């Protein structure tokens, strides 16, 4: 059975803004599935629709086999959510936050207590369970939220930007926990991220999403292979000339030109660099630097959207939220 099925899912906001513009998705049970895209691509809105927090403008969505618009309580019982922004009560202890959640989902006392101990162990917060959440670090809060999302044994767990605003080491720890709970708890995980490395490391399948549309969907490996080999990036004084030169070379794929650099994908690219440099010299192009790397999801992203994910300027609202988040994550 598919954990999630969405067909031509759309969400239009007031003023005609199409946040999600016709998405088709199928996520199998047990998968870790990633929605990868820049801020404002429609990732969070997609999750909000699947989690019954906002109604789709049109299209269908089934979670755990239940239509999200028909029986929202049934869908809510079968999913867990970790929101992008912190959603803990920091005047309560970690244990009380979990207890509140378990009671809201109608778990009886004995089961509640056992499960709290279990999820606390899973995210290694047992020894801090009786501290007020305001005393927790950002990473600990995140882990507690993940534990809470698992409390009522959901079939599907949504993680909206699970490592946003965390430092590199803490992100690693969170990734390990996500992998572990996917295996141990056999829970299907849908996560959104704008971190390439996160999608690459964690996800079995990734959908690249921008402007509310899915541009490509496959395993990270297949997505990278589709780039046609290793990627050579040359920084030159005449990018357009270099681009047409690269296109004429045998086996060259995905030639892209950005400002003063040209990237070209080719098999065994390392051994072809001398050839590239020679023809550049013959054409009178000055080469300032050469870079060779295995294709990453970043390259895939650039290929499909024509831009770097980091180029996306955050709007004023996003910046404000970032600040709030940074404060509350301290």
């Amino acid at each position, binding site marked *: 059975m598919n954990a999630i099925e969405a067909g031509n899912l759309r969400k239009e906001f007031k003023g005609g803004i199409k946040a999600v513009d016709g998405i088709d998705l199928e996520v199998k049970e047990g998968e870790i599935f990633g929605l990868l895209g820049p801020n404002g691509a429609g990732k969070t809105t997609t999750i909000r629709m699947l989690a019954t927090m906002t109604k789709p403008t049109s299209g269908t969505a089934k979670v755990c086999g239940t239509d999200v618009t028909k029986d929202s309580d049934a869908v*809510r019982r079968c999913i867990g959510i970790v929101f992008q922004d912190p959603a*803990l009560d920091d005047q*309560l202890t970690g244990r009380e936050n979990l207890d509140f959640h378990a009671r*809201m989902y*109608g778990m009886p006392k004995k089961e509640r207590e056992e499960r709290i101990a279990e999820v606390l162990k899973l995210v290694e917060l047992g020894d801090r369970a009786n501290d007020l959440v305001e005393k927790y670090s950002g990473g600990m809060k995140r882990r507690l939220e993940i534990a*809470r999302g698992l409390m009522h044994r959901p079939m599907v767990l949504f993680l909206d930007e699970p490592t946003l605003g965390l430092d590199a080491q803490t992100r690693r720890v969170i990734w390990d926990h996500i992998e572990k709970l996917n295996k141990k708890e056999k829970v299907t995980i849908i996560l959104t991220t704008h971190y390439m490395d996160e999608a690459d490391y964690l996800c079995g399948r990734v959908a690249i999403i921008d402007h509310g549309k899915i541009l490509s969907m496959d395993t990270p490996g297949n997505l990278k292979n589709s780039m046609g080999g290793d990627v050579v990036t040359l920084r030159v004084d005449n990018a357009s000339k270099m681009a047409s030169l690269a296109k004429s070379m045998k086996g060259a794929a995905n030639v892209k030109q950005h400002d003063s650099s040209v990237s070209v994908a080719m098999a065994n690219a390392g051994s072809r660099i001398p050839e590239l440099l020679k023809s550049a010299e013959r054409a009178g192009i000055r080469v300032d630097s050469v870079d060779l790397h295995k294709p990453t999801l970043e390259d895939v992203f650039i290929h499909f959207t024509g831009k770097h994910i980091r180029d996306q300027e955050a709007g004023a609202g996003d910046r404000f939220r970032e600040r709030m988040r940074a404060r*509350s994550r301290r």
Partner: protein
Amino acid sequence: MSGITAVYIIWLREMKKYIRNKSRLVGNLAMPFFFLAFLGMGFNSLNIPGLPAGASYLDFLAPGIVAMGLLFSSMFAGVSILWDRQFGFLKEIMVAPVSRTSIVIGRIFAGMTSGIIQALLILAISILMGVRIPNPLGLLASVIFIVLIAISFVGLGISLASKMEDMHGFQLIMNFLIMPTFLLSGALFPLDRLPGWLAALAYIDPLTYGVDGLRALITGASHLPVMLDFVILAGFSLAMIGLATYLFNKTEV
């Protein structure tokens, strides 16, 4: 899951936080105390026309200050949904498989419980300061008005919070709603010699009936028949429960 359990859980969370937050508890008592001590004692020596026979200004003021404490703490309890919104916890509540109505009722119950505790403490302080209670049974009956005032203004607070995006509007509510409601309610001065326009405003103010009812039961003297106070305030509190439920059901997080 049944609605009653959900109401209990919401109530339980608020109560835990209420008991834990000592500064809020003290803060909720400080202002009523200052009003009683400084305003009450200050005016006590003056001869104020319109007071019930045999009553001092302090006797007159005490029920009004109980109502004031309830007004402030209940509005705050209702509007505190905004804090949950700001700190994200509202989302956690909203995606749980419980009805919005039970969330509203749970919060109203919590505001009511803390309101009763606070009101009884203010009454105790007033008695220690020398306020005379002619009829202890009336004091007991006054709990009905305490409950109704609490429900009314927690409900109003939730209704307002449901229509607000963030905490920026709270100052407006404080200045343009809570303060006039308090000052017009007859908590500080007798209503029977007011100029017409001011009296009209006072009769629009729902807290007027709360203050008058409390005063009738605690000190034995009132401006309006106590049954009329009860009917109007009960009607208003039911309306506020309805409005709060309706508006909160429509919010998205």
